[in-house]
């Protein structure tokens, strides 16, 4: 059984090279959140300006 699992994992033996992706993801999520909220805030401000007489 152990040998079977080991054999199945061989194709992903280099996954350790990609561990850094897990550390970059939170940064990407935060930056995406900033872009999203900045766009929303700009849109809101534009709409408020348009509503003003």
């Amino acid at each position, binding site marked *: 059984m152990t040998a079977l699992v080991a054999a199945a994992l061989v194709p992903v*033996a280099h996954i350790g090279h990609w561990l850094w992706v897990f550390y970059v993801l*939170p940064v990407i999520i935060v930056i995406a*959140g*900033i872009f999203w909220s900045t766009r929303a805030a700009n849109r809101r401000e534009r709409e408020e300006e348009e509503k003003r007489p």
Partner: protein
Amino acid sequence: MNVVLALPFGHALVARQDLPIPAWLFAWAASIVLIVSFFALSAAWRRPIFEDQHWRPLGGAGFSRALLGPPAQALCGAIGVLLLGFAIYAGLHGTEAPDRNFALTFLFVTCWLGFPFLAAIFGDVFRPFNPWRAAGRACGAALAAAGVERPSKLAYPQRLGRWPAAIGLLAVVWLEVVYGASGGIAVGLDPHSCAVAACVYSAYTLAMMALFGVEEWCATGEIFSVYFGMFSQLGFLGVRDGKLGRRRPLAAATSWAAIPGSAAVVIASIASTSFDGSQEGAFKGAIEKVFEWLGEAGLGPTTSLRLSNTIFMLLCFAGVALVYELGVRGMRSIPGAPSLARLRTAFAHTLIPIALAYLIAHYFSLFVFQEQAQFTYLLSDPLGTGHTDLFGTAEVGIDFSLLSSQTIWYVQVAALVCGHVLGLTLAHDRALTIWPDPRRATRSQYWMLAVMVAFTCFGLYLLSAGNG
């Protein structure tokens, strides 16, 4: 079964086997802590409080006089000069084994790491013990007593600011981790080289003090005064008008970065620690590749090793500076923002807790282990001759069981998270002074949140790769 679990990591970074959850999950948890802290600050912190240090004297005038008066200054200065002289003597005349010689541990662990840790709590404790300041002042006093008329001092170029200290800081770390890098090749910073470097630095510093004045050079160019002084801005003790007093912790940092080059000092601190942490971990493969290219280009192994490490050290500096610059440029996009130059200066102090956090995370275990050596066998046999036992502790070794690898990891994570939350707090406080409208202040701080999350994840990645 363990072999099977280790297979996916078999060719690169090895996952820490002694943690209950994967190391990268700590980066996610730390990011969530920062995001929650950010929103808590936005909701509850509506006016700046760090701009006022809330300084009040500690004890009576006699207490301050006793601690800060000329006799105490002379005594502390003499201790500083004596210890530096002894470290140089040990380096020149002691054993060449780095771990058995008093000089390396004393200069690069006890002082280089100890003073920032102490300063971050108690304020500028290095200043009275600074051997170059003491020597410079003593020379000035002796000349004055002898009635010798000194030539007038040169005006220090204000544009230079703290840049000499920033460059010097990188040079000190370069000496320690690049010039002294082993990397499988016996280069190594030996105690003799360390002592020679200390002599050269002493001559340079005293010359600069003679040119520009002792206090002027200590405030701007003297590497150790500037570096330890930076961390002292976080401490709760401070001197004002010759009196010792308590102040709001972190508050002194708000005015620290006004001198040009201060941002470079704090960035150099973070970058040099990052490089030291990644040299044998995250960047190891890349450094080896550059080392091979340089070797193929005809350079010798020692030169190739030093050059490849130097390149990566400078890249670290550029990378940290770039992340900070992106944060500043992001803030500039908020209506009502001042100029980029002003923003760069205004928020540089928010990186000081991060520099301290990186320092604790990377060196706390080294400090705990090496200080055992410092106060046992290195104190009893400072020259490492094997024939001296001054205090009967020459045979005592380091107890490595004092800290488990899990304890070290949790301290590292806690230091990074706390450092970045404090950085975020300082940044939010400063933003409220620039954008009085709390909504705009919060929006400007989205970018500093991204900077803090980036530094936290990068720091944890370096630690996990290094510890793996």
